């Protein structure tokens, strides 16, 4: 039943991004991702489409976004390179140097078995490390940026901003937290 409730919340959230779950639940240690809101949009830009693309350009140039992107890349590029080289080396050794792979380690277990199980182990470890890195170092900053974009888009397109008079957060104040992120953190 509670699950059903969760889903209903989800439905509300998607229709109304301002649906605000309780502000509790960030609970992430080390979430010191204080992100400076991107610079305000240039005033007096052209039509809606133009304004929207300006918003993305500005957010793209903002220090906060550059920080999120470089955090993502600083983890993903070395990790991808590492596991790819490790996998290719494994495949090439297995096909080109079977004698090396056949060397016994303990009992019937040989180098090939150890290397194969090592691939499984390294996959599990990297998965865990990536999930942890993303949760602690990126999620919050990315979410703040998402709301910053939403804010600006709404300001640029008043028709979309009519959401029943909910207070608009002032520039620089903590942004509302998204329901699903808060909920997921509680799990």
């Amino acid at each position, binding site marked *: 039943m509670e699950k059903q409730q969760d889903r209903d919340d989800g439905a509300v959230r998607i229709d109304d991004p301002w649906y605000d779950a309780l502000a509790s639940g960030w609970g992430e240690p080390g979430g010191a991702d204080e992100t400076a809101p991107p610079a305000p949009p240039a005033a007096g830009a052209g039509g809606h489409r133009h304004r929207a693309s300006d918003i*993305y350009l500005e957010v*793209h140039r903002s220090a906060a976004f550059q920080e999120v992107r470089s955090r993502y890349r600083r983890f993903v590029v070395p990790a991808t390179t590492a596991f*790819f080289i490790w996998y290719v080396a494994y495949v090439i050794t*297995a*096909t080109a140097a079977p004698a090396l*792979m056949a060397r016994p380690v303990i009992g019937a277990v040989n180098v*090939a078995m150890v290397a194969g199980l090592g691939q*499984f182990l390294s996959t599990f470890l990297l998965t865990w490390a990536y999930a942890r890195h993303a949760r602690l170092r990126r999620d919050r900053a990315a979410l703040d940026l998402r709301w910053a974009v939403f804010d600006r888009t709404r300001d640029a397109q008043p028709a979309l901003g009519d959401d029943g008079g909910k207070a608009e957060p002032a520039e620089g104040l903590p942004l509302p937290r998204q329901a*699903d992120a808060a909920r997921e953190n509680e799990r």
Partner: protein
Amino acid sequence: MTGDHQTLALVLFSAFIAVTLAITTWVSRNRRGSAEEFYAGGRLFSPMENGFAIAGDYMSAASFLGISGLIALYGYDGMLYSVGFLVAWLVVLFLVAELVRNCGRFTLADVVASRMSERPVRIAAGTSSVAVSVLYLVAQMVGAGSLVALLLGGTSEAARSWTVIGVGALMVVYVSMGGMRATTWIQIVKAVLLMAGATALTVLVLVRFHGDVNQLLDSAAAQSGHGKDFLSPGLRYGTDWTARLDFISLGLALVLGTAGLPHILSRFYTVPTARAARRSVVWSIGLIGSFYLMTIVLGFGAAAILGTDEVRSSNAAGNTAVPLLALDLGGGAGSTGGTVLFAVVAAVAFATILAVVAGITLASSASVAHDLYASLRRRRGKGYSEVAVARVAAAVIGAAAIALGLLARDLNVAFLVGLAFAVAASANLPVLLYSLFWRNFTTRGAVWSVYGGLVPAVLLVVLSPVASGSPEALFPELDFQLFPLQNPGLVSIPLGFLAGWLGTVTSSEAPDEARHAETEVRALTGAGAV
């Protein structure tokens, strides 16, 4: 073989079909029409549900029957498949899952088209998605055919053909009636059944050897007729340099192909956020990793308990090793335990095939309706609703898969899946990575990259020993073989990347900085995501 286990297995089959049809009817009540519903199940699955569904979508009959069979026949060389299938998920997790969830709506083409001139890109990406899906479907159909042939005690051609046709018809019903919601629940049920079945068999194998892995490996080596060589690489892929290169090619295709499989990509759209997509991949890596570890035990167990010769005499490609192993573990043919276990394994394998097939059919019908039909519609004038087109497309794709499945029935299913992965890695992955990460990528680059991977991959398969010029080929009586390798990945994957780069640097179109910025911001923050 007695009739008992066949009857029981048929009862279990029917039960699974009844349950899944009930799910289909139940979830499709009052839910007609919306594309959001049909393709993405309303995007409200939880990460755990989606993780099980991804695992259910990915762990195909090719894994359960094919890989264990290859290990039983060739020892360590079969295990190389398991490693590739798992490591591939790191590519998905790191580079694809979250970004695709944030940038797209239903298909791979959505991600690419958001930055590019829409029509040509959609047509290209839609075509390659359909090609990959059809290849993958054929593998599943072949698995279904050989499974039921074994089950009905003999390789009666008619029984096989009717199985393939029946599976095809069922999957069309699931997909066109229930859309993503029904498909997802079928995959979740199947993932639970498959994990339970594999765990039970693994435990029984380990109990048979008193938990002594060393003894298991020693007996496998002794029973295989190859001695210690069975436990080290080289039996299948170490004979000459062609075979070695073939395996390196396959290894590349496996690790890079998963991230380009349309039915895997479409699963990320069934959760509300990128964060949930990431969490579903973490779930699925846990499930898939443990499953492939178990297939290793099952493969060596089949070699140790049955012996390689018995496995080969039942099915030359090894696809029936696990059902035979189950029969033996339960107490042998004729015993109650053997009957029950055999029937359970056969039913689980059947469930696996149905679930995977439904997932692929759904993804390819989405590509047809959302990408191809939507791009070509204006020329024809009168338009039908996209979901209606998708339902019809599911039926057409089902028919094509049935026909090809009947034609290719003697090929090993794990090998066929390797081909599908090679095409996915050559045609879909380069364009996806370029559009997500390369600032200067242009429309021409995108189109070239898809066709530059797809055409060589398909052409090389046609010119390979798979199609002609060898006794096991699709057309053994013909010989138009020019390319020595069975798997085209080693050549076609770099070609896909190269073509994308060439198309981009030679294109006169200036890269659109604003749209690149928008893609990057959306990909990493989820701004504007549906």
